[in-house]
C-alpha cells in the first residue's frame, strides 16, 4: 500500500502541493486527475523519491520512500526521454541494471518485453532510429521490465495510436491483476474512467475529491441522460431554454444532458419521442467524470 500523508512541497514562496493525502492499494489503479499545473507531476516525483516533500511523509509498504523503493518502482515520466545513441536492447538492459537487475536478467526481460510490444526487430538499432510511438513503447518497457511493485505512469497513452494504446491498457490491466499498485496520471477523462478503480482529483496543489470511482460518481447521483437518435434535436435547446436541462454535449445524433430543477427523466423521454424520427438509446446514468471534474474545479476556484 502507498500512503501519501499530508504532503506539502514548496519552492521558495510558491506552494506546488499543499497538504495532499491519499492512499493507493495493491491490485488497484489510482487515477490522479487534474488540470495542467495542478501539482500532479510534483506529487508523482515525490512518490518516485526524486523530490523530497517539504512537509509530510510518503510510505510504501510501511516504509518511507527512498532509494530502496526506487528499486521496486517503475516510473514513466510525462516528459519522455531516452539515450538517443544507445542501441534499443542496450538501453533497456542499462536501465534495468540501474534498477538492480543482473545483466542476464535485464537482458531476458528486455527481450521478452520487446517481443511483447512488437519491437523485437529493432533490438540492435539505435534508439534515435525509432519513431516517436516506438520510443514511447520503449519507455513503457523501461518502466515495467524490473517487475516493479509500484508503477507510476504519467500520461502513458499520449502520442500512441489506438492499437498500441489498447495493447498498453491490456498490459496495465494484467499488472493490476498481478497485484501491483498502479498510479496513473492523466487529463484524458475517458481513459481514467475506463481504467481506474480509485481517483484523486487535484487542482492548484490541493485534493478536491478522492476515493473509489464508483462512489464518487454515485455521490453525484443519477441525473445525467444520454440520448442517441435520428432527426431533429432542437427540442433539446427548447428544454434548456426552460431551465429544465443543461446540455453537456451535443452532436448530430447524440446528446448528453443534466437534469435541472428536479425535472423527471420521463419528461425528456416524452419530448424526445414527440420530436425525433427514431430513438436508439435513452439512458439515465451518473455524470461522466469530465463533468464531475469540471464541476469540482469550478467550485474550488470560486
Amino acid at each position: 500500500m502507498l500512503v501519501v500523508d499530508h504532503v506539502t512541497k514548496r519552492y521558495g514562496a510558491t506552494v506546488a502541493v499543499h497538504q495532499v493525502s491519499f492512499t493507493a492499494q495493491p491490485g488497484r489503479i489510482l487515477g490522479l486527475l487534474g488540470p495542467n499545473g495542478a501539482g500532479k507531476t510534483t506529487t508523482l516525483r515525490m512518490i518516485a523519491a526524486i523530490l523530497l516533500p517539504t512537509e509530510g511523509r510518503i510510505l510504501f509498504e510501511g516504509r518511507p520512500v527512498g532509494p530502496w523503493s526506487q528499486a521496486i518502482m517503475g516510473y514513466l515520466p510525462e516528459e519522455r526521454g531516452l539515450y538517443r545513441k544507445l542501441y534499443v536492447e542496450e538501453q533497456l538492459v542499462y536501465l534495468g541494471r540501474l534498477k538492480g537487475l543482473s545483466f542476464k536478467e535485464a537482458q531476458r526481460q528486455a527481450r521478452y518485453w520487446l517481443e511483447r510490444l512488437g519491437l523485437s526487430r529493432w533490438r540492435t538499432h539505435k534508439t534515435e532510429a525509432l519513431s516517436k510511438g516506438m520510443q514511447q513503447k520503449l519507455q513503457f518497457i523501461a518502466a515495467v521490465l524490473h517487475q516493479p511493485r509500484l508503477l507510476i505512469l504519467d500520461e502513458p497513452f499520449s502520442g500512441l495510436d489506438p492499437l498500441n494504446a489498447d495493447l498498453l491498457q491490456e498490459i496495465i490491466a494484467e499488472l493490476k491483476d498481478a497485484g501491483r499498485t498502479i498510479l496513473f496520471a492523466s487529463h484524458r477523462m475517458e481513459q481514467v474512467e475506463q481504467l481506474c478503480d480509485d481517483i484523486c482529483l487535484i487542482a492548484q496543489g490541493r485534493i478536491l475529491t478522492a476515493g473509489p470511482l464508483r462512489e464518487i460518481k454515485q455521490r453525484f447521483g443519477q441525473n445525467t441522460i444520454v440520448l442517441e437518435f435520428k432527426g431533429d434535436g432542437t427540442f433539446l435547446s427548447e428544454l434548456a431554454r426552460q431551465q429544465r436541462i443543461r446540455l453537456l454535449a451535443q452532436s448530430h445524433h447524440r446528446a448528453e444532458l443534466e437534469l435541472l430543477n428536479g425535472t423527471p427523466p420521463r419528461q425528456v423521454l416524452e419530448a424526445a419521442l414527440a420530436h425525433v424520427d427514431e430513438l436508439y438509446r435513452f439512458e439515465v446514468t451518473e455524470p461522466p467524470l469530465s463533468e464531475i471534474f469540471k464541476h469540482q474545479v469550478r467550485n474550488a476556484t470560486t
Partner: protein
Amino acid sequence: MHKIWTILQSEFVRRVRTRMFLLTTLLAPIFLLTLLLVPPLISYLSDRSAVHRLAVMDLSGELLPRMQAHAPATLQLEAATLPTDTLQAAVRAGRYDGYLLLPASLLEGSGNAELYAQSGLGLSFQIQLERLLNKAVEEARLARLQVPPELVAVLRAEVNLRLYRLSETGAEADGTAFYSIIGYIMAFLIYGATLAYGSVVLQGVIDEKASRVVELVISSVRPLHLMMGKVLGIGALGLLQFFLWGLLLFAGTTAAGPLLSHFLRTQSSQLGATASTEEVLQAAHISLPAIDPLLIVWFILFFLAGYLLYASLFAAIGSAVEQQQDAQGLMLPLTLLIVIPILFMPYVITNPHTSLSVALSLIPFFSPILMVARLAIGGVAWWEGLVAYLLLVGAFIGAIWISARIYRIGILMYGQKPSLKEIWRWLRAT
C-alpha cells in the same frame, strides 16, 4: 557503488565505440607531429631548393676565392668587374639575384660589404652570407699576419659547457632544457585534457537533461551517483586515450630510428640500415636523459585529481542549463581558473624554486598544471608534491560535494537560464 560502476561502464562504452574517439586518438598525434615537424621541414626544404647567384665585385682581390671555397652548393658566387650600372641591369634582367660589393678596406678591419638585390633574399640567407664573409675576412687577415696554424687552431677551439646534475647516486648528465620541455608538454597535456574531457562531461550532462532522460535515471539512482559515474566513465576514456597515445608515441619513436637511418645512410656509413633509434641518436651525438617512472605516476595522479576537480564543476554547470551556449557565462570563472596557471607557466618553468612558484604550485586549481611542470624539471622535495596532491584531493572532494548539490536541483530545472546568484541559492537550499 555498484550503480556508479554500471553508469561508468555505460558512459565509457558508448563513447569509446564512436568514430569520434577513433579519429581523435589517431589524428591528435598526427596533428601534433605535423605542428612540430612541418615548420622546420618547410624552411629546410626551401633553403635547400633555392639556389642563389650573386655577382661579386671583389676589390680586395683576396676574399672571393676564400668565400667560394666555403660556400654551399646553393650559393653561386661569380666574379664581376663590370661597371655598377651594367651589374644593376643584369640583376634586373634576372641573371643574378644580386650583386655584392667588397671594398678593399675590409681587409683592414673597416668598411662595409654591400649587397644590392632586387627583392628581399630572406633573413636566413643574409645570416648565411654574413657568416661566410666573416670567415673569409678572418682567414685573409690571419694569413696576412702570417699567424702560425697552431695559433689558428687555438683561436678556432670552442668550449662547450656541459651540465651535470648531482643526485644521490652520483653525477648524471643534466637535461634542464629537456626536462623543461617535458614539463611544458605534460602541463599542456593536463590543461588540454582537462578542458577537452571537461567539456565532454558538460555536453553529456546537457544532453541528458535536454533529452529528459535524466528524470528516468534519477528515479533509479541518486543524482550524486549518476554524476560520479559519468565523470569517472569519461575520465576512464581519457586514461585510455592517453594510454593509446603513449603506445603510438612508443611505436613512433621505435620506428623513427630505422627510418632515419635509412635516409641518413648516404651520409654516415657506420650506421646499419636497421639501426635502432638509440643508435641513430648516439651517432648524431644526441643523448636524451631518461624520464623517471615516478614522474609518469605523478602525471597520471595529478591528471586524474585535476580532472575530477574540474569535471565535477563542469557537470554542475551542465546541469543548470539546457543548451551549450547558455553555459558560456557560467563557464567563465572556471575557464579563468584553468588559464591562470598557463599564464604563469613560463615563469614557473624558468624559476621553479622561487617562493612564488612553490606557492602557486600548491594551490589546488593550479597544481595539476604547475606542480607537474615543477616535478618534471626536478629538484622538488617529495613532500611538496604530496602536500599539493592532498590539497588537490581535498579540493575535488569539496567540488564534488558542491557540484552534487547544484546538480540534483539543476537537472530538474527547465525553462530558465540561471545566474550564478541563482545557483548560489540552490547550493544553500536543503
